[in-house]
């Protein structure tokens, strides 16, 4: 193992068989192209065979996540965070994966519940990606769910697995403040997980940052919406409700949802 | 005044000199026979010019030098050549030697000799006279003195350093020489300065010999540019490179000789012996030897003819005590332990020591704990820890990258090693291996 040359040999196990004759370049290119074509055909076939299942699962994951943090909305709208503000439509020509998204949930009576927002930031080991329900008018959180984290198993990953930690976030107003376990004294304080202070704190910080960043935009959107709503309600009261619920591939959604 | 000039690192072993420092040197009774090895110096062995049965007088030439770096051997006694054969040498090997039976009832008076007139001699004649007298470095290395005196033309010598440090514990031979014959030391310096064509000389003496310093200062002739320096007591102050660093603040470049930086170093006893050559015409046949150690009944400083066997010396000094464990020729730091008491003393032998069990107690060897004490001790700033690892792994050639060749085997690293790893022994072995199997140049 010490000599790189021997390692090279191990990787390629045996020396190549001796060259017997010159192979024409045409044959080389032909072989490669042929192999490439076969590979391509195989891949396209597999891609199309598995795509529906994958897409469906991703959509399901997103739906479940939004459903969890917004406490079971009947439907939700996907909105885009554009430089000029939040909008339901993309500017023409723009690709939707380039924009951060927020999800606007409604209950069965079609009353808005709140927004599902994605927050991402450094944790103890790596990035923590969260989705959380938020009511911008009241400034209150509705619920949180960890989408991705690599926190210490059995310790930091309690932010994901410990329900008693997660439920603390339901219905409290931002900005949040992390305190030691058993020392909660104010409504907006979150008790940290014993032994996983950093991870707990990272969750609180990421949430606070996302709220500070997005709350003004959301409020502006709601204000604009309210204005449109009052004017539209007279002419077309069902306009908002009839907006189709757009389900987009979640993978692209979540990836570009990062700040 | 103690000079603050010194070298860095080094160690402070107990100096133990109080046993013999105040004892004036006395002539030791002549033994029944002496054994004179043909190789008492560095370089090529001398070649015998006598035959069995020849009658020789004290001071007669019995073996002549065979090369530029070699030295003749003179008979240290009057007697009859008994045998020319192999005899145990202090190095442990069996080497060619001339055994001379001391003539009973002989007055042991040398033949009258022509004393060379130093004032009229040329440089090369002075060094030839020194060479013919068989003078070698008496500090221990036994490098032929004359060979040092013809440095290459491009590096002229500008200062003579006289080494009176005697930093080895127990040894007081040089010390007694300085106290008893300061005038002879200065006479030797005078001759050397003339031979070298320079005016300056410096004498370095460790500060633990105030009487020697006083004697030298008192005897210092006013017409010579000679200064006497007291140096801090630290082993190996007497090593050539260390002495040069202390007295001139010059560093001998790695792999070069002191002459390359314009310095000639001679041991103080060597200088005195050179003086004696030009005073009496006698060649080098005897010297002051310190017989000491806690394992000896009556320590003392003795003038002993070369070739006297250890056994005879110990007998005169009352024999070994019951707890004596080791008999060492030279000092305890660099001297050679002797397993055979019939080994004779040589020109370079400054001491015969008997060490007790308590002094050289054999301790267990532990693995190296990388304490770094050896790096702190090495006066050459080597990395004995790394060298030791390489030596144990028998990666001798890599040791050269870590400057094994600069190691002078002073033993400081072994002395301080808490794990008792025989570092200097390992280095000796490595050096020997490399001398026998020189690395291929890449």
């Amino acid at each position: 193992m010490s000599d790189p040359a021997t390692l090279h040999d191990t990787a390629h196990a045996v020396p190549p068989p001796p060259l017997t004759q010159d192979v024409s370049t045409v044959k080389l290119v032909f072989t490669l192209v042929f192999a490439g074509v076969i590979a391509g055909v195989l891949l396209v076939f597999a891609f199309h065979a598995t795509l529906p299942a994958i897409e469906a699962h991703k959509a399901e994951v997103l739906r479940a996540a939004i459903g969890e943090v917004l406490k079971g909305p009947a439907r939700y709208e996907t909105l885009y965070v554009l430089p000029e503000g939040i909008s339901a439509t993309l500017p023409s020509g723009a690709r939707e994966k380039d924009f951060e998204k927020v999800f606007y949930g409604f209950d069965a009576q079609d009353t808005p519940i709140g927004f599902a927002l994605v927050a991402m930031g450094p944790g103890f080991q790596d990035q923590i990606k969260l989705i959380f329900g938020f009511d911008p008018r009241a400034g209150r959180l509705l619920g949180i769910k960890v989408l991705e984290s690599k926190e210490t198993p059995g310790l930091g990953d309690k932010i994901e697995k410990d329900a008693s930690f997660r439920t603390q976030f339901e219905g409290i107003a931002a900005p949040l403040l992390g305190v030691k376990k058993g020392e909660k004294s104010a409504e907006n304080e979150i008790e940290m997980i014993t032994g996983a202070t950093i991870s707990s704190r990272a969750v609180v910080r990421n949430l606070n940052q996302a709220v500070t960043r997005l709350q003004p935009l959301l409020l502006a959107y709601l204000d604009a919406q309210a204005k449109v709503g009052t004017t539209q309600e007279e002419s077309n009261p069902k306009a908002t409700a009839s907006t189709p619920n757009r389900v987009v591939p979640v993978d692209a959604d979540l990836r570009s949802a990062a700040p | 005044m103690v000079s603050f000039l010194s070298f860095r690192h080094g160690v402070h072993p107990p100096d133990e000199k109080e046993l013999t420092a105040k004892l004036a040197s006395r002539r030791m009774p002549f033994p029944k026979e002496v054994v004179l090895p043909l190789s008492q110096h560095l370089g090529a062995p001398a070649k015998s010019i006598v035959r069995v049965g020849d009658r020789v007088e004290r001071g007669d030439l019995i073996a002549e030098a065979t090369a530029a770096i070699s030295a003749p051997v003179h008979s240290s006694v009057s007697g009859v050549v008994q045998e020319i054969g192999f005899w145990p040498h202090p190095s442990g090997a069996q080497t060619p030697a001339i055994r001379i039976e001391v003539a009973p009832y002989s007055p042991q008076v040398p033949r009258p000799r022509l004393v060379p007139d130093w004032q009229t001699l040329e440089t090369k004649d002075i060094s030839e006279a020194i060479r013919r007298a068989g003078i070698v470095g008496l500090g221990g290395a036994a490098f032929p003195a004359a060979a040092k005196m013809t440095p290459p033309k491009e590096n002229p010598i500008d200062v003579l350093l006289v080494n009176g440090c005697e930093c080895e514990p127990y040894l007081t031979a040089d010390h007694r020489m300085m106290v008893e014959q300061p005038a002879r030391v200065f006479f030797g310096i005078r001759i050397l300065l003339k031979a070298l064509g320079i005016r300056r000389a410096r004498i370095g003496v460790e500060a633990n010999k105030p009487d020697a310093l006083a004697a030298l200062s008192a005897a210092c002739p006013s017409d010579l540019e000679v200064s006497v320096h007291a140096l801090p007591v630290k082993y190996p102050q007497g090593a050539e490179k260390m002495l040069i660093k202390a007295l001139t603040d010059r560093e001998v470049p790695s792999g070069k000789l002191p002459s390359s930086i314009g310095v000639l170093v001679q041991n103080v006893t060597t200088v005195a012996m050179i003086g004696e050559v030009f005073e009496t015409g006698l060649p080098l046949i005897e010297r002051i030897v310190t017989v000491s150690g806690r394992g000896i009944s009556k320590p003392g400083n003795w003038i002993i003819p070369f070739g006297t066997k250890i056994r005879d010396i110990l007998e005169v000094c009352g024999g070994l005590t019951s707890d004596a464990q080791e008999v060492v020729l030279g000092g305890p730091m660099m001297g050679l332990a002797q397993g055979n008491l019939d080994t004779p003393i040589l020109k370079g032998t400054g001491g015969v020591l008997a060490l007790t069990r308590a002094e050289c107690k054999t301790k267990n060897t532990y693995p190296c704990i990388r304490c770094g004490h050896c790096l702190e001790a090495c006066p050459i700033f080597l990395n004995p820890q790394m060298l030791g690892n390489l030596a144990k792994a028998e990666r001798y050639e890599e040791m050269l990258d870590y400057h094994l060749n600069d190691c002078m085997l002073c033993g400081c690293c072994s002395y301080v090693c808490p794990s008792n790893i025989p570092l200097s022994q390992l280095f000796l072995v490595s050096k020997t291996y490399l001398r026998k199997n020189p690395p291929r140049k890449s």
Partner: protein
Amino acid sequence: MMSELVWIFFSAMVVNNFTLVLFLGLCAFMGVSSRVETALRMGAANIFVLVLTSISAWALNRFVLEAAPYLRIISFIIVIASLVQIVEMVIKKVSPTLFRQLGIYLPLITTNCAILGLAIFQTNRGYGFWEGLFFALGAGAGLTLALVLMASIRESTEFSDVPSIAKGTGLVLIIAGSLSLAFMGFAGLLSGGA
């Protein structure tokens, strides 16, 4: 922006060190870590290829793979293999000395999972050009750090009386485990202070 780039760099270098935390590039780590000189050169070669890979992966993601995401793995590995080949030829032309020093390591890099890993991680995390670049630099620095640490430690254990069963891979794995334990100290770096 700047602080995020710094975080990406340090995260890839020490917090999520490619070798000691993410287990990427282990073949090189186990195989080319017995001499410090070799480790340094291998590290340098890796940094170089990592940066080029990051740029190429970014370009591929931006211009090609949107249309055909299923070609991701194939296109990455082909690009890496060709990159290594091109780098090898260029170095051979420009600096034969460097080629002699790096030459034998370059082919190894093709099958070094750190390179492909970088391209895939970068894609999964949606890094842009600069983020990818800093990610590659951090990853390369981390690889080199781990390699040099391991190599210098292995050089010094050459003198140790390692028990016969631990000689070789066993000891290297235990050392790597210890290094990995030590690197846990970096966890949460630059993200702990609030």
